[in-house]
């Protein structure tokens, strides 16, 4: 019973790491980036390639899984995304779906369509018994990494100078610029970090969610659910939403497997109908 709860939490955590970059771009920069999953996939593939072709250890690849997508994100932000900050949501959706199409086809072309598999290190395999609850080591690892990430992000956003600059830049770019805040720079860094975190999520989640060229499509819906249900005004909202979703999904499948994917979609519609701005939106 508690094992299910634990699995649900771990699953929710992975969803959060994957989605939180999106909640940053969407919530703070008001950009609907459906191509978010493509950055996550880039991270996953970085890890898979480094491990399988160059024999890196899993842990060593994780920073790369952050930096490579972050770099790609930075490049794309500077060249393409930047132009669309003021565009309508629909334009952004279309643009980013276009990117997803390209990413999927390109990955297929270079890496093949078969799923990529990675071997997590020996010491993360298996499970231990804690107070009678069977706990998977890898899942605990994920929970720990994600927990640290959540706290760090929240601190950066609320406590640091960069965080307040970012929020100012989002609230009113013109005034912020007038105050001497390098808005463009702030946005670019934020976007890159958001993409990097997605990449990290892709690498961490590869073991649980699988990794193949259709990854961005398969999980796009999940990310969006997390972000829209959680609301976009803070990071805590999506975090709680991801946990809730993870637990509801895992629990739903355990107790009523006949219902399958209904649970997650229905939860989303109900929440959005009654709280159009998300479950945890302020105001």
């Amino acid at each position: 019973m508690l094992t299910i709860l634990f699995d649900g939490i771990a699953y929710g955590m992975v969803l959060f790491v994957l989605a939180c970059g999106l909640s940053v771009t969407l919530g703070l920069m008001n950009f609907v980036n459906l191509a978010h999953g493509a950055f996550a996939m880039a991270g996953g593939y970085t890890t898979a390639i480094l491990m399988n072709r160059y024999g890196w250890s899993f842990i060593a690849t994780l920073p790369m899984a952050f930096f490579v997508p972050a770099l790609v994100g930075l490049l794309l932000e500077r060249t393409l995304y930047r132009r669309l900050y003021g565009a309508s949501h629909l334009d952004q959706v279309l643009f980013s779906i276009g990117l997803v199409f390209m990413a999927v086809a390109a990955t297929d072309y270079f890496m093949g369509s078969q799923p990529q598999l990675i071997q997590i290190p020996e010491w993360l395999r298996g499970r231990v018994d804690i107070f009678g609850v069977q706990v998977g080591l890898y899942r605990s690892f994920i929970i720990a990494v994600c927990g640290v990430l959540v706290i760090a992000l929240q601190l950066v956003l609320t406590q640091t100078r960069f965080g307040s600059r970012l929020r100012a830049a989002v609230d009113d770019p013109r005034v912020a610029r007038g105050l001497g805040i390098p808005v463009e720079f702030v946005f670019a860094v934020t976007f890159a970090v958001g993409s990097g975190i997605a990449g990290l999520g892709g690498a961490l989640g590869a073991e649980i969610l699988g990794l193949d060229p259709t990854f961005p499509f398969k999980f796009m819906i999940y990310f969006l659910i997390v972000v829209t249900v959680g609301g976009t005004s803070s990071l805590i909202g999506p975090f709680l939403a991801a946990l809730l979703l993870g637990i509801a999904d895992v629990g739903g499948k355990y107790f009523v497997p006949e219902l399958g994917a209904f649970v997650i979609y229905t939860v989303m519609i109900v929440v959005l109908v009654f709280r159009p701005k998300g479950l945890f939106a302020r105001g």
Partner: protein
Amino acid sequence: MFRRTLLRTAVAAAGIVLAASGASAQETFKVGLILPMTGPFASTGKQIAAAANLYVQQKGAVVAGKRIEIVLKDDTGVADVTRRIAQDLIVNDKVSVIAGFGLTPLALATAPLATQAKTPMVVMSAATSIITERSPFIVRTAQTVPQIVTPFAEWTLKQGIKRMATLVSDYGPGHDVEKFYSDTFRAGGGTIENLRVPLANPDFAPFLQRIADMKPEAVLVFVPSGVGSQFIKQFVERGMDKSGIRLIATGDVTDDDILNPMGDVALGLVTAHHYSAAHDSPENKAFVAAFRAANGGMRPNFMAVSGYDGMHAIYEGLKKSNGQGGEALVNAMKGLSWMSPRGPVSIDAETRDIVQNVYIRRVARVDGELYNIEFETIPNVKDPAKGK
């Protein structure tokens, strides 16, 4: 009224054109290969297309006085597209055979067309038993689900296992696996519990927990090939392999295409299937070597061998029918038998379905790579779901 006449005239005219082109097609004989080349089932398409091309390359493009030409089309795994492409190929490209069909719904959607157009249809992957009954023009060179799981259930019973669970993906072939395996297993005196997982299912944790609670002696898994490795890893990660629950699977899970990267977790896994790239025969060694050479080291899997044999059936059928297509070709393909890379196979004259050996295999490391090593053979299995 005017319209009607006009329509009739036009149709008649088109008929004449078709007939005329039939006569002039002495030179080329087109095979329309419809496969999912993009989307989640793209690897099916790639394997089959590569094998079919290899066959033509090896045996030469000319057979029975005709030059074989493969027209490859991507249906993205969407059934109404498959059907439309098939129709398009028959009407416009004047193909004489349609082949491929990665998934059951794709084949089922196209079956009525094969009958209507009297065009032979070679099914190279879709595995639901009923497919060949949907049109007298269908010949299958892949496998059927009952063909694999029925003997597998008998084999499991023979190992002294009496309490089983099944876990299948919630779609046509999965339901087939569940039904045929369970029926045979129950008839042999065992008890069995069934569990279904959604097709698009990222995390197996809740289902694995269910199985752990059931505590069966063994669990049979059927999921589409890509997801299979996911499942095994999570199975091992939860320590279920050590809790006395034996994991067995259909060969889809240890698909040769992805077996090697699965790593040590797959070691020792027992599966039943009709083809392994490690099958020990000269035919297979040659096939694997040629396939690898032609495709950048890619290992052929059971889909590839179906594509290869599908082309073989068409070639041999053409030789027997003296280059005639349509019904003559279907009739010629009935009863063919040959030595395939997978072992001896034949096309059942009544059901037009393939008859082949089913092997029980175990995953082992050979020359540093993981392979399915066959250790027991159940010879000449017909599709048990038919002709009872």
